[in-house]
């Protein structure tokens, strides 16, 4: 199929429809509204449901209902809206309902602003909602991945009966790039557990309440086993020029694109710098950091937040190497030059 030149936000919607998504429940919020606009345009065209809910809270609960009924269903929002959806996300995880949630992150805390930030990392990776649950979180860094990882998110959600999130920012959402869209999927996975309004599915129950302590404990152990399985099987990351590197830059989303250029420029200056870019933020690519820490001098984490993912880098590497940090906040996207200057300052070659 020929490529389309398309905005990341639009690519999500077309990819979702090709992936068989049957309903989109939205609520307006900048900078995620574009996703809802595209969904409102395209979902009805192919006979799927688009509904603007009365709130973020209602939107995620409509997704809960649709997912329980067996649909591939999704919603999209931005940081303050994601905070509101946390109740529903915990229930979805508790009832083991698959769905896809898109977060086009913006500046916070509070109303913050509408410019790109990466300060939702903690709320989406470390919980946000109550209880022991995990959200599968995929971080695209361009329009093609907005498409590919939307597909992936639906597949993983169904495979593990777990909500999955596409975590992007306004920068990736606004950027236009060529996208090769896959063909529409042939068949959706069967969902024996779903409420299909048939005699066969009548005994099905979608539920997250277990009053008996032991029963709920067992339930949690079962979820933990599932989380372990996801961690064992679904980690995704990208390495760039890491083999002989002394310093490893770490960043996700749009930052990883900027870091790629930083690596090229640093290399041109003779600095042995490489890049690790987590694609799944949960499950976090722990192993590669543990591995690299045995042969590099330092890590250098760049985030558009106060420093949230850096904790996971430190944990994964056992704090065994200096972990430098550079950040911008408030909607400022760091430039190649400012990062490069910071990298030069911290760079030291590994003694042989």
């Amino acid at each position, binding site marked *: 199929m020929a490529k389309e030149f398309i905005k990341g936000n639009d690519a999500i919607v077309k990819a979702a429809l090709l992936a068989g998504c049957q309903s989109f429940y939205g609520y307006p919020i900048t900078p995620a509204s574009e996703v809802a606009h595209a969904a409102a345009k395209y979902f009805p065209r192919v*006979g799927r449901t688009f509904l603007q809910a009365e709130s973020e809270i209602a939107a995620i609960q409509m997704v*809960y209902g649709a997912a*329980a009924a067996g649909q591939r269903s999704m919603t999209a929002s931005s940081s303050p809206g994601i905070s509101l959806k946390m109740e529903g996300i915990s229930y979805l995880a508790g009832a083991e309902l698959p769905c896809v949630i898109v977060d086009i992150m913006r500046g916070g805390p509070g109303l913050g602003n509408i410019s790109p930030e990466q300060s939702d990392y903690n709320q989406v990776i470390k919980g946000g909602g109550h209880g022991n649950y995990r959200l599968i979180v995929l971080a695209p860094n361009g329009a093609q991945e907005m498409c590919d990882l939307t597909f992936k998110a639906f597949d993983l959600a169904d495979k593990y009966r777990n909500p999955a999130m596409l975590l992007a920012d306004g920068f990736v959402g606004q*950027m236009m790039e060529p996208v090769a*869209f896959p063909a529409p999927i042939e068949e959706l996975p069967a969902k024996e557990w779903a409420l299909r309004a*048939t005699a066969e599915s009548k005994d099905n129950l979608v*539920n997250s309440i277990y009053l008996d302590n032991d029963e709920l404990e067992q339930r949690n152990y079962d979820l933990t086993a599932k989380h372990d399985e996801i961690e064992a099987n679904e980690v995704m990351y990208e390495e760039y020029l890491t083999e002989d590197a002394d310093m490893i830059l770490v960043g996700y989303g749009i930052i990883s694109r*900027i870091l790629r250029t930083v690596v090229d420029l640093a290399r041109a200056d003779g600095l042995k710098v490489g890049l690790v870019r987590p694609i799944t933020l949960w499950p976090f690519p722990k192993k590669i950091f543990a591995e690299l820490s045995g042969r590099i001098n330092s890590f250098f984490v760049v985030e558009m937040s106060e420093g949230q993912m850096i904790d996971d880098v430190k944990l994964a590497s056992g704090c065994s190497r200096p972990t430098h940090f550079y950040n911008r906040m408030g909607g400022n996207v760091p430039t190649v030059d400012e990062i490069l200057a910071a990298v030069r300052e911290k760079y030291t070659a590994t003694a042989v």
Partner: protein
Amino acid sequence: MAKLILQKPKGFYDSFYRKPGDKENTHYCPGCGHGIIHKLIAEAIEDFGIGDRTIMVSPVGCSVFVYYYFNTGNIQVAHGRAPAVATGIKRANPNSIVISYQGDGDLAAIGGNNILQAANRGEHITVFFVNNAIYGMTGGQLAPTTLPGMKTSTTPYGRDIQNEGPPMKVVELLSSLDGPTYLERTAVMSNASIAKTRKAIRKALQCQIDGLGFSMVEMLSACNSGWKVDPKEQYKWMEEMMLPTFPLGVVKDVREEREGWFRETRTMTDEAIKQELDLTMPEPTIFPSELKKGSYHNPSIKLAGFGGQGILSAGAMLANAGMEQALETSWIPSYGPEMRGGTAYCFVNLSNKPIGSPTVTNPDVLMAFNRPSLEKFEAEVKPGGLLMYDSTIIDIEPTRKDIEVLPVPATQIAEDLGNTRMANTVMVGAYIAQTGIMAPAAIDQTLPLALKRKTMVDANKKALAAGVDYVMSR
């Protein structure tokens, strides 16, 4: 053989197997109205023969365990959210009969907006709303329906309407909306009132079965433990305390005026889906081109000017065409504070390797369409880079000596063609001619996609050619 004269309705499970302990009786307190209401619903489900396609939505509250009892599909949901969840279920499966069973704290307090909006949408669901003027499950707290002066665990001195406001009359509230089809308030306190409730429940369900829209029955119901009233006195209490505030009867019934309808489901072929998603790009033709200078290789380009000069679309035109020539391309508009102060700009990258940062501090190429852009961004251009500017509009000259400068009277050329708004396309033509990065035919090929107004395609082709000619004839 003994004649069977009484049995559980088939709408219930024979044995409440999900319930811990006793599998025969409900978990409700003696005298509680929930049991009677459950039975009326279960009988209706059996009589209507809808058990297989019914989904019961269990709320939070005393009726959190509705799924212990009903021989239907079951789902338990978050506090107050039942109408939103029911919406998702019903939309997913228009053939299902979706019943939201809610108490007053759940429906009228925390879920107030959810019920209001579902009712207003005329959602094809049925809500059975149990009003007992108190929170039961959580320990007898104030509900929106708690009566004035009534003592609860959070109004130990009685509901003070100056503090908590007066009781909320839910069916009356919803009746002000055009959305709902059928709204009635009944009571569960005497044989006669139970018979009326039975009838109301059936009307409400029939309303959904017939595709007539949103139906709800508010049922006044006893909670002697929450009220701290002797069970023997509970119906008297209801009569004296509740009925004056919550009058019984049909509040809205427009079933006769409405036509039944059902959402249709549609299946489409792959081809039709791609068509509807505008994914019908033909395989592009690659037109040979030759770079005129090594420094024109893999450019990062900044286009800047006033909003309305077509800066963003000129960038997209270039990037879109580049993609069709098998280049890696990216386009990103200025974002955030830069948009203020007289300049709008975008970045375009054209490259034969993966593009890292879509924005750079020092672009290889600057196309300036107004004076503020030239003044602001001239210094940014990478040494050895290319600066192009609209010399019709910009009345100053660049001062840098370490870059290549190309004035293009783009607005004048566009005006000669009859439309100054095409200055952006002229500039694009001048750029590709100057650099040789792609053939004019490559831009022509994607113009229909890049332009919102398809009637402008031919005129823009001319503008592009004029930009090319300008450079070639210099």
